[in-house]
């Protein structure tokens, strides 16, 4: 097991003062900071290997192609995919989910059901709403349990919701608002039993612990590089090979065709079929470096570290007056959302920033869930491998100061 403090020297951005105080970065669910090896991978590529990939016969192009395809193989190993061709590089989770949703469009019709959950980020909700609208399929939701007490999915409801009419079951692995860890393997197995295709939004889980697509039994998995210490602008769609080969391409153009004549074109197989145009070579390579970094630290250890911080923060924050801490009390991910009765999230975030603490306030792209919880916005603290218990104490001290200033809950 590592200590968060030991890893901080790997992250240049952490060594700065914000408003005269050492930066306490607790906005990792929005984006994670980048370790030196990831930054170096970007610099190395642009200083030494920059060139366009595929079809290139000169030295730089061959190096770039090798590094780019090497990154694909690296990511495949990171999620234990059976074949690198099951890894499609995208811009991020949102593009990955849109790619599946639009690709499945031809297979859905009126009477079919798309199942998702009440806790989805807008990125795993709006594309399915659009698909339902376009195909006449019905969108249904697995309820979130309790008011906010439990924060888990109502698994008993699956008995009635998972019918043979369900063609797609899309759900988040970890809720970005509640911190709930959903039983992904169980959900995939239940979906498979009725012949539904599963789509996992792994944005919040991929960099925070072990992830094995075959253990989970997932059909599609979407995630972003930037939440797992990689660069922004690169993400992944994993798809089981047989499903990808049957999926319609979303964008068409160069690089994804076998042959073109004036009458039409034939598609390449995955992954090229889904990567029209010049791909994001540099960021894909740096994502590979992020995989190396996380594996080196140890993903089991990262999971233990992040979840321990989440649990500690949940306990310490729950002791503050007038606070409502969302999500499960027991096992939870390394993020905690909370709301004060008398102080709005944006005022909290502004005050915490004064203490050098980076938080996020708002609806977290989770408007329907917030409405269900009867909240307009919450403040969220989210942890990663370089965070420490001391930072949670600093957060609590800062929050007490805020409550005092607003004369709230005292």
């Amino acid at each position, binding site marked *: 097991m590592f200590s968060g403090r030991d890893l901080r020297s790997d992250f240049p951005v952490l060594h700065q003062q914000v408003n005269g105080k050492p930066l306490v970065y607790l906005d990792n669910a929005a984006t994670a900071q980048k370790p030196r090896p990831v930054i170096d991978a970007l610099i190395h590529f642009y200083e030494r290997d920059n060139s366009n990939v595929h079809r290139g016969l000169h030295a730089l192009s061959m190096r770039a192609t090798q590094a780019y395809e090497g990154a694909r193989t690296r990511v495949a190993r990171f999620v234990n995919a059976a074949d690198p061709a099951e890894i499609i590089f995208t811009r991020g989770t949102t593009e990955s989910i849109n790619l599946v949703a639009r690709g499945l469009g031809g297979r859905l019709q009126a009477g079919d059901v798309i199942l998702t959950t009440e806790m989805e980020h807008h990125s795993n909700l709006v594309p399915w709403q659009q698909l339902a609208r376009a195909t006449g399929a019905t969108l249904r939701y697995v309820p979130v349990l309790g008011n906010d007490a439990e924060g888990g999915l109502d698994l008993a409801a699956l008995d009635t919701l998972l019918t043979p009419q369900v063609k797609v079951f899309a759900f988040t692995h970890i809720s970005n608002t509640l911190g709930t860890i959903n039983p992904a393997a169980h959900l995939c197995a239940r979906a498979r039993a009725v012949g539904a295709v599963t789509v996992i939004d792994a944005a919040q889980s991929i960099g925070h612990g072990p992830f094995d697509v075959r253990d989970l039994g997932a059909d599609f998995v979407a995630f972003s590089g930037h939440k797992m210490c990689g660069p922004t602008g690169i993400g992944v769609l994993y798809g089981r090979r047989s499903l990808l080969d049957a999926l319609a391409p979303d964008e068409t153009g160069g690089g994804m065709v076998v042959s073109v004549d004036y009458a039409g074109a034939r598609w390449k197989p995955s992954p090229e079929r889904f990567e029209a145009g010049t791909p994001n070579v540099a960021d894909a390579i740096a994502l590979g470096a992020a995989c190396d970094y996380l594996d080196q630290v140890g993903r089991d250890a990262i999971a233990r570290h992040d979840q321990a911080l989440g649990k500690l923060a949940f306990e310490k924050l729950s002791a503050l007056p007038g606070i409502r801490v969302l999500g499960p009390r027991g096992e939870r991910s390394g993020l905690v959302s909370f709301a004060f009765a008398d102080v*709005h999230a*944006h*005022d909290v975030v*502004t005050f915490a920033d004064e203490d050098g603490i980076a938080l996020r306030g708002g609806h977290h792209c989770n408007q329907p869930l917030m409405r269900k919880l009867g909240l*307009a916005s919450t403040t969220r603290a989210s942890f990663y491998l370089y965070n420490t218990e001391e930072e949670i104490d600093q957060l609590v001290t800062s929050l007490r100061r805020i409550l005092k200033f607003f*004369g709230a809950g005292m």
Partner: protein
Amino acid sequence: MSADLTELYQQVILDHNKRPRNRGKLPTATRVAHGDNPTCGDQCSVYLRLDGDRIAEITFDGSGCAISQAAASLMTTQVKGRTAAEVQGLYDEFHRIVTTGEAPEEISDLAAFAGVHAFPARIKCATLGWHATLNALKGDAAPATTETHLD
């Protein structure tokens, strides 16, 4: 506390946040408009009754940060009895204050919001209620959203 933060959370603002004026629905309203800030989920509805071309009564409700709630509350106290053109003039003045930090020429509670200019992300909070009111005066039923306004 830094000077910027003290300036942002002035006593006038804290007071309006804690004891908002003219808060609630207005049963006799002749105009209603709603404002949304999609970035943070802040909402503000404005209800007003016109007497001729002047605002006879105005209330607001909704939810949001201290800045947005206080700005909406203060706004209701400033626009009562005014015409649409006068409200537009006041808004222009208010907008100048929150974007430049310069105090108004005349002594006014609006000056309490000068500190907002140091926090550009909060300008939308301060102007949400004003946008809703301007829309209500125009008879514009479409919800005001901060995203379609330049500030």
